[in-house]
């Protein structure tokens, strides 16, 4: 039971990070119906920008009070990563809008390769270890089993991740349901042509969708960096695919679905590693992706797609 509880906490933490990335996938898919394959790499870039910023703020500018540092890093990293998201859309996707369906998927794969290698060249191929910045936590339970003592801990870092995710999710839900931007987005999602006729700037709305997705990916990148303490240029690929799996599992196009899917994928991955084998944890994620797409293509909270002939 103790072990289970600990795994549950770890799974929720990991799932929050996946959920944040998954929102980017789900929003883009909802609005233009394409898989933004480069989104995982935007997350990776977010992590790298956060790392550089963190070092800049702490060692060069000399801020030491952690909450302030984190706030500065989050805000600036979101801004700079958004610029990347915007650029990717502008360069690789906008010129192909209205082209055949697979064209943007192929440029997205090209962008993903290019971004990975760009970071590899400019930042080096070696992993970047960041020593743990936030230590300590709350001990929830102490117990002893045959295998030894087990302490169930909820670290402060995990609390920060979960709280940040919840706050951002709430903020985004409000943004989508209450603001004019959100209304424009929902309109574009339903019918782009009609939205354009009614005066919605479709291109701008789509760009902003990418910007929002990238901003959330930046937060996920920072959380990943702080939680695991190790990043390299390749983290985007796996995290991206798992987040996409999360988006599909939750029902692509649905915001709460992405979060739910993220949490589920995080839990499945952690429990799989905890109770079965660590080596095959990625196989678990990939199999879920395949199974969900084949048997439940509209996901848990998604609307079934009706095919028009």
């Amino acid at each position, binding site marked *: 039971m103790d072990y289970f509880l600990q795994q549950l906490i770890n799974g929720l933490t990991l799932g929050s990070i996946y959920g944040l990335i998954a929102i980017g996938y789900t929003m883009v898919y909802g609005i233009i119906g394409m898989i933004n394959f480069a989104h995982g790499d935007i997350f990776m870039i977010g992590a790298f920008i956060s790392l550089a910023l963190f*070092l800049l703020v702490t060692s060069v500018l000399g801020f030491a009070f952690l909450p302030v540092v984190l706030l500065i890093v989050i805000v600036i990293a979101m801004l700079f990563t958004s610029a990347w998201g915007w*650029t990717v859309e502008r360069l690789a996707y906008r010129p192909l809008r*209205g082209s055949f369906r697979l064209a943007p998927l192929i440029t997205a794969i090209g962008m993903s390769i290019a971004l990975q290698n760009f970071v590899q060249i400019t930042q080096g191929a070696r992993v970047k270890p960041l020593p743990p910045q936030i230590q300590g936590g709350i001990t929830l339970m102490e117990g002893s089993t045959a295998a030894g003592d087990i302490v169930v801990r909820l670290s402060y870092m995990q609390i920060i991740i979960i709280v940040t995710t919840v706050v951002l999710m709430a903020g985004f839900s409000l943004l989508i349901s209450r603001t004019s931007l959100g209304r424009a987005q929902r309109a574009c999602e339903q019918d782009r042509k009609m939205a*354009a006729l009614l005066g919605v700037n479709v291109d701008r709305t789509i760009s902003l969708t990418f910007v929002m997705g990238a901003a959330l990916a930046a937060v996920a990148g920072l959380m990943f960096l702080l939680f695991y303490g190790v990043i390299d240029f390749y983290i985007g690929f796996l995290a991206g695919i798992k987040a996409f799996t999360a988006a599909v599992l939750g029902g692509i196009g649905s915001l709460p679905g992405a979060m739910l899917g993220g949490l589920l994928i995080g839990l499945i991955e952690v429990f799989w590693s905890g109770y079965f084998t660590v080596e095959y944890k990625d196989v678990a994620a990939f199999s879920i992706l395949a199974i969900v797409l084949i048997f439940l293509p509209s996901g848990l909270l998604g609307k079934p797609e009706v095919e028009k002939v």
Partner: protein
Amino acid sequence: MAESDTNMPTSLQKPVGAQIKREERAEAPRNTGPGGTGNKLADSLRDAAMAAFLAAVLGFFLIGIRTDIAPGGLALTTRWVAWIVSILVVFGGRLALSLLVFRADHPVTETLGGKISSLSEATPQLGKWLARALLVFALVLPFFFTTFVPGRDRQFIDLAILILTYIMLGWGLNIVVGLAGLLDLGYVAFYAVGAYSFALLAQFFDLGFWMALPLAGMLAAFWGLILGFPVLRLRGDYLAIVTLAFGEIIRIVLLNWYEFTGGPDGISGIPKPTFFGLELSRGDDGFAAFFGLEYSPIHRFIYLYYIILVLALITNFVTMRLRRLPIGRAWEALREDEIACRSLGINTRNTKLTAFAIGAMFGGFAGSFFATRQGFISPESFTFLESAIILAIVVLGGLGSQIGVVIASVVMIGGIEMLRNLGFLSNVFGSGFDPVQYRMLIFGLAMVFIMVWKPRGLISTREPSVVLKEKKQIGADMVAQGEGH
């Protein structure tokens, strides 16, 4: 901020990519974009300045600052020179692009694209002759290298073998993506199955290359069926993602099944192919001794070259023949419209499965060739990147076009390998500059830019597979290439 006229969402118009721009350019009064002053140069400068600003923002943390592992944690180093250079490069590039393409009266890209398409539209004759010329060229290539560049012939033949391997993989994938319209992002899985089948058959049953080759092809085709079956109901990008997942699953299994596949250590000591039982080695019973030639290690490379050439040509021949059979026509019908296909009584399940299986079979052949050429295989060689490269070759060459695959392989693989010969650039950029590093970066960007420039690939027109009375060209805009139904 690129084109002067993006007020109207391009998504609402039918034509594609470059076409859209051309039409917009024709319709819109020249240079009256949002805030445009009407002055071509001034507008271009403004565009370039914005692009440079964007580059400055993008590069600030990734180019300007570098984090490195230092004693006692991570340290920051700054590289403002590189940052400023990158901004200037973007400024200059954007300015040139604006002046020459976006705001020009006769965009360079259109002239160039027009030349390529007029070249490919002249294909009935030209394509035939080009193919024949290429074939003759391919047949004499190794001897060309040994006579004219004797010092580096081995390197060049190796490169030719590599390119031919990709051509064969491209042709194999073309059956699945180009003909049947099923986007497969996990093609490398079949390549891996072929390679591992041969390696394991050689290891456990002591089979030679020629014995194992058909078995490897059959096993790969079998896996094509197994993986094809569950994805029958999927379409478009969902299909792509699931095939990607399958590819990764196979790689992870190969990586972790240590007892059977050797895990990350791979399998080494894979036998070389023999020539009717003769080994291409030094010794009394070797190939050279038997024919009374002087032994040279280059013989083996030439032999490998001809093996892959023959394998690739078989792939091409079979594809071209299959296209004329009912099954081939069913594939193309499936690509165009699955629902119409079904209502005409075509068994879409079998059609899809055969496409997967036959495509996979050729991937398996190429895989066993890869194993015998390398003599060593490990899961490292079968990553997603490899699938992406093969797919890029097929798509950039023009989906469904056989000659396009050849051109794209030569340009992408050959061109990138040529970077290794650009060592002199280090004199310009300093000794730390290694052009090989930039290989994949250039590859990725090339994928994006060729796609944006010519979304239908370099060779976008196709010959009809079946002809009634007279031959008509199929225009690029007439085919729903790779809709992925």
